[in-house]
C-alpha cells in the first residue's frame, strides 16, 4: 500500500518536470501538441495526488498502523469523521492536501481555458507545475506521509484533541485551500508577465481565479474565528496572533486586488499595482505557511516544527526574486492608458480603498514581524499585542466602511459633489440617526462612528439596489422582487458584490458590538448558587463527571434567566481524551438571548462540584455569523453562471454604470 502511495508521488514528480518542459518547449517552438501535453500533465499530477491521498485515507479508515503517519494521528476508538480529519491534521498530510487542492483548481483553470488563451496557459501551466513540483519534492523526499513504522503498534496515538471538533473538519482544510488556490492567479500573472500578453483578455481570466481564491481564503479565516469562539473559550474570535495575522495578509491584498482590477478593466490604469498585488498575495500565502511551519515568530498556535521551514524559506525567496524580476522587466509594458480625471470619481475611490487595504496589510505585517526586526536591529526582542492592531487597524477599517458606502455611489471619471450628496441623502440620514442615538444612549464615540459607518454602507447598498430595480421596473414593468432578481442576474459581479458589502457591514456591526460592549466576569460557584452578570442571572444547576467513549467529560449545567424568565439551560463542558489527559479541551456553553450571546466557560473545578466559571456577555456576536452567511450568499450570486453578460461587458465602453462594475 505504502509503495503505491509513494510511487504515485514519485511518478507525479517526474510528470510535473515533464509537464514544465513540454509546456515551455511547446510554447517556444509553437508545438501545440506539447502545450496540450503540458496541461494534461497538470491533470495527471492531480490524479496521481488523489491516488496517494486515497492510499492514505484508506490506511486511516482501516487503521493500518504500520503507517507512522496513521499511528501518530489516529486510534481505533476515534469516530470515523475524525479519522478522516486526521488525514490533513499533520505536516505531511497537509502538504498533500495543499497539492491536491491546487491540483484540482489548476486542472480546471488550465484545461478549460487552454483554447481561449493558447499563448498564456502553457506558461501558466509550467509555473504551476513548478510549484506542484516543489510540493511533490517535499512529499517524496522531505516529509513523506508514507513513512513506515518498523513494528506496527497495536493502536495509534489518537488525534490531537483540539482537532476533534466539527469546526476542525472544515476550518483547516478551507484555510489551506485558500492558501493553495492563490497559486492559480499567481501562475496566470507570472505567465502574463513572461509572455508579455498583458492586454485586457487575461484580466478576466485572472480576476475570476483571484476571486475564487479570495472567497475560499475568506471563508477559511471566517470559519477559524467561528471555531475559536466556540472551542477556545477566551470569549473572542480573533486574537491578532501572528498565525492569524499571516492568514489575513493575503486576504487583504487580494481584497485590494479584486477592487482595483475593476479600474484596470474599465480604465486601463493601475496595471503595475494590480500585478504587484497578485504576486504579493501568493507570496504572503507562502510567507504565512513559512512562518507557521518554521516557528520563527512566537505564537500561541503551536505546530509541529520541522526542517520544512527551511525549504519554504527557499521557495519564498525564489517567488520573491521571480516576481520582482519579472515586474521590473515588464515595467515598460504596463503603462497606464489613462489618468485620474478627478478626485471625486469611482477610480479614485478604488485607489483610496486600495491604499487603506495596503495600510492595514502593512501595519499587520509590521506588528507580526516586529519581534524579528527589533531582535535584528536592537538586539532585544520586542512584541506588540492586540492593542497595537486595534489602535491602528480600527480607524483604518472605519475609513474602509465609509468608502464601502460612498464608492458605489461615485460615477466613473468624475462625480459632481452635489449629485453625490443627493444620492447619499438616505444613507447619511440613517447614519446620522444612528450616531446621535448611540452617543446619547451608550457614549463610546468610536463605537458610534463605526456603527454609523456600517449602517451608512448598508443604506448605500439599499440605494443602489433600489435605483437599479426602479430603472428596470420602469423599462420592463416587473414587480420589485422580480426586478431585483433580474438585476442581480444581469450583473452578478456588481450586485453580488453589493451583497458581500452588506455581509461585511453586518459583520462589522457584530465586531463593534462585541469589542466595545463585552462584559466579562470570573466567579466561583457551588451547585445551586447563582450570579448576576449584566441583566442576566446565571444559575449553576448541576455538576457531572463521566467517562464517555473516548473521553472523560466534565460538565456544568447553567440556567440562564432574565428577570426570572428562563432563557434556556446551557452546558459548559471539558473533555479529557484518552491518551491526551494532560490536554483537556473545551466546549463553551453559549445561549443567544436577543442580541447577546451568553458565553460560559468552565475553567477549573473541584471534586465537590465547586466550579470556576468564566462568563462573558458578548453583544451582537451572532451578527458576525449571520453576516458571514450573507457574505457567502453574495459569493454565490457572484459566481452564479450568467451566460452572455460576460461577453457583452467586453464591448461596453468605459462609462456609465449600466453594466457590470464588479465586486465593488
Amino acid at each position: 500500500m505504502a509503495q503505491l502511495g509513494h510511487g504515485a508521488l514519485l511518478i507525479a514528480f517526474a510528470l510535473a518536470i515533464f509537464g514544465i518542459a513540454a509546456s515551455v518547449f511547446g510554447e517556444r517552438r509553437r508545438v501545440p501538441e506539447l502545450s496540450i501535453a503540458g496541461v494534461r500533465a497538470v491533470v495527471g499530477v492531480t490524479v496521481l495526488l488523489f491516488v496517494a491521498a486515497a492510499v492514505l485515507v484508506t490506511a486511516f479508515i482501516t487503521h493500518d498502523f504500520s503507517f507512522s503517519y496513521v499511528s501518530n494521528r489516529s486510534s481505533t476508538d476515534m469516530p470515523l469523521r475524525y479519522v478522516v480529519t486526521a488525514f490533513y491534521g499533520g505536516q505531511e498530510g497537509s502538504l498533500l492536501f495543499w497539492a491536491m487542492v491546487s491540483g484540482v483548481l489548476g486542472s480546471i483553470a488550465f484545461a478549460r481555458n487552454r483554447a481561449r488563451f493558447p499563448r498564456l496557459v502553457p506558461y501558466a501551466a509550467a509555473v504551476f507545475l513548478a510549484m506542484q513540483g516543489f510540493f511533490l519534492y517535499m512529499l517524496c523526499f522531505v516529509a513523506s506521509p508514507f513513512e513506515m513504522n518498523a513494528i506496527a503498534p497495536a493502536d495509534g496515538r489518537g488525534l490531537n484533541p483540539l482537532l476533534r471538533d466539527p469546526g476542525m473538519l472544515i476550518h483547516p482544510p478551507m484555510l489551506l485551500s485558500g492558501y493553495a488556490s492563490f497559486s492559480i492567479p499567481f501562475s496566470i500573472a507570472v505567465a502574463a508577465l513572461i509572455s508579455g500578453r498583458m492586454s485586457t483578455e487575461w484580466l478576466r481570466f485572472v480576476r475570476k481565479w483571484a476571486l475564487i481564491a479570495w472567497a475560499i481564503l475568506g471563508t477559511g479565516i471566517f470559519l477559524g474565528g467561528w471555531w475559536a469562539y466556540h472551542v477556545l473559550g477566551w470569549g473572542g474570535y480573533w486574537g491578532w496572533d501572528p498565525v492569524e495575522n499571516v492568514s489575513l495578509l493575503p486576504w487583504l491584498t487580494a481584497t485590494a486586488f479584486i477592487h482595483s482590477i475593476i479600474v484596470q478593466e474599465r480604465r486601463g490604469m493601475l496595471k503595475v499595482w494590480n500585478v504587484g498585488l497578485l504576486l504579493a498575495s501568493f507570496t504572503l500565502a507562502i510567507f504565512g505557511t513559512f512562518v507557521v511551519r518554521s516557528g520563527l515568530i512566537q505564537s500561541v498556535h503551536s505546530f509541529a516544527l520541522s526542517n520544512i521551514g527551511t525549504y519554504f524559506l527557499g521557495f519564498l525567496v525564489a517567488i520573491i526574486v521571480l516576481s520582482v524580476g519579472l515586474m521590473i522587466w515588464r515595467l515598460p509594458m504596463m503603462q497606464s492608458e489613462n489618468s485620474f480625471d478627478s478626485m471625486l470619481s469611482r477610480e479614485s475611490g478604488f485607489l483610496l480603498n486600495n491604499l487603506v487595504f495596503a495600510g492595514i496589510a502593512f501595519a499587520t505585517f509590521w506588528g507580526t514581524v516586529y519581534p524579528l526586526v527589533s531582535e535584528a536591529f536592537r538586539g532585544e526582542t520586542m512584541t506588540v499585542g492586540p492593542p497595537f492592531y486595534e489602535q491602528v487597524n480600527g480607524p483604518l477599517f472605519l475609513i474602509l466602511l465609509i468608502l464601502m458606502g460612498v464608492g458605489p455611489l461615485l460615477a466613473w471619471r468624475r462625480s459632481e459633489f452635489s449629485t453625490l450628496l443627493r444620492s447619499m441623502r438616505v444613507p447619511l440620514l440613517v447614519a446620522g440617526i444612528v450616531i446621535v442615538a448611540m452617543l446619547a444612549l451608550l457614549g463610546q464615540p468610536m463605537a458610534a462612528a463605526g456603527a454609523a459607518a456600517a449602517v451608512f454602507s448598508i443604506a448605500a447598498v439599499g440605494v443602489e439596489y433600489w435605483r437599479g430595480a426602479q430603472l428596470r421596473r420602469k423599462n420592463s414593468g416587473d414587480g420589485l422582487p422580480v426586478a431585483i432578481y433580474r438585476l442581480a442576474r444581469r450583473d452578478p459581479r456588481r450586485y453580488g458584490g453589493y451583497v458581500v458589502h452588506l455581509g461585511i457591514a453586518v459583520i462589522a456591526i457584530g465586531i463593534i458590538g462585541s469589542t466595545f460592549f463585552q462584559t466579562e466576569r470570573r466567579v466561583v460557584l457551588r451547585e445551586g448558587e447563582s450570579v448576576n452578570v449584566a441583566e442576566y442571572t446565571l444559575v449553576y444547576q448541576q455538576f457531572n463527571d463521566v467517562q464517555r467513549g473516548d473521553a472523560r467529560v466534565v460538565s456544568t449545567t447553567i440556567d440562564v434567566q432574565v428577570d426570572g424568565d428562563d432563557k434556556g439551560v446551557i452546558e459548559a463542558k471539558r473533555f479529557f481524551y484518552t491518551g491526551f489527559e494532560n490536554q483537556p479541551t473545551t466546549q463553551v456553553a453559549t445561549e443567544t438571548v436577543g442580541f447577546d450571546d451568553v458565553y460560559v466557560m468552565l475553567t477549573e473545578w473541584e471534586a465537590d462540584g465547586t466550579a470556576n466559571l468564566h462568563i462573558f456577555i458578548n453583544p451582537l456576536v451572532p451578527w458576525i455569523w449571520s453576516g458571514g452567511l450573507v457574505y457567502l450568499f453574495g459569493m454565490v450570486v457572484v459566481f452564479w453562471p450568467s451566460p452572455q453578460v460576460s461577453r457583452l461587458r467586453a464591448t461596453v465602453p468605459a462609462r456609465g454604470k449600466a453594466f457590470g462594475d464588479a465586486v465593488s
Partner: protein
Amino acid sequence: MRTESGHGPSIITPMEARRRNPWVNPKLLIVGAILLATVGFLVFNAMGSSMAYFQTVGELNASGKGLTGEQIRVGGGVEPGSIEERALSDELRFTITDGTNLLPVVYDGVVPDIFKEDVEVVAEGTIGPDGTMTATKLLTKCPSRFEDGSAASK
C-alpha cells in the same frame, strides 16, 4: 496634470498624449500622502503604547528590564514544585525558570488548560518592587507532541 495635455475630458486620447499623461493627479497624491501619513502616525503611536519586551528570565535579570514598571513578556518553564496549592478563587502563584534563574509570578486570570510543572509559558505583566511579576496574561506553549494543521490554544 489631468488637463495638461488638453485631452482630459475626452474619452479617446491620442497615443502620444497618453504616453505623456502621468496617472498621478496632484490632489490624489496629496490625499494619498495624508493617508500614508495617517497609517504611519497610527503605527508609531500604537507602537509606543503596546510594545513589550520579550525576554527569558536570565535576560531579564541581566538587563534589569521591568524594574521601572514597563510591560514585559517573560518566557520560560514552570519550575517543578513551585505551583502553590490554592482555592479556586485565589490567584495562581508559581515560578518561571530558565534552568538557573527564577522569577516568581502572581497571576489572577484564567489558567490555561495545559498549565502544569515544566510546561513552557509566556507571562505578560509588570514586575513589582519585591521582584514578583504580576501577570495579566499567561500563555502556554503546547508540548512538542502537539501536531496539527492549524489549531490554537489560547
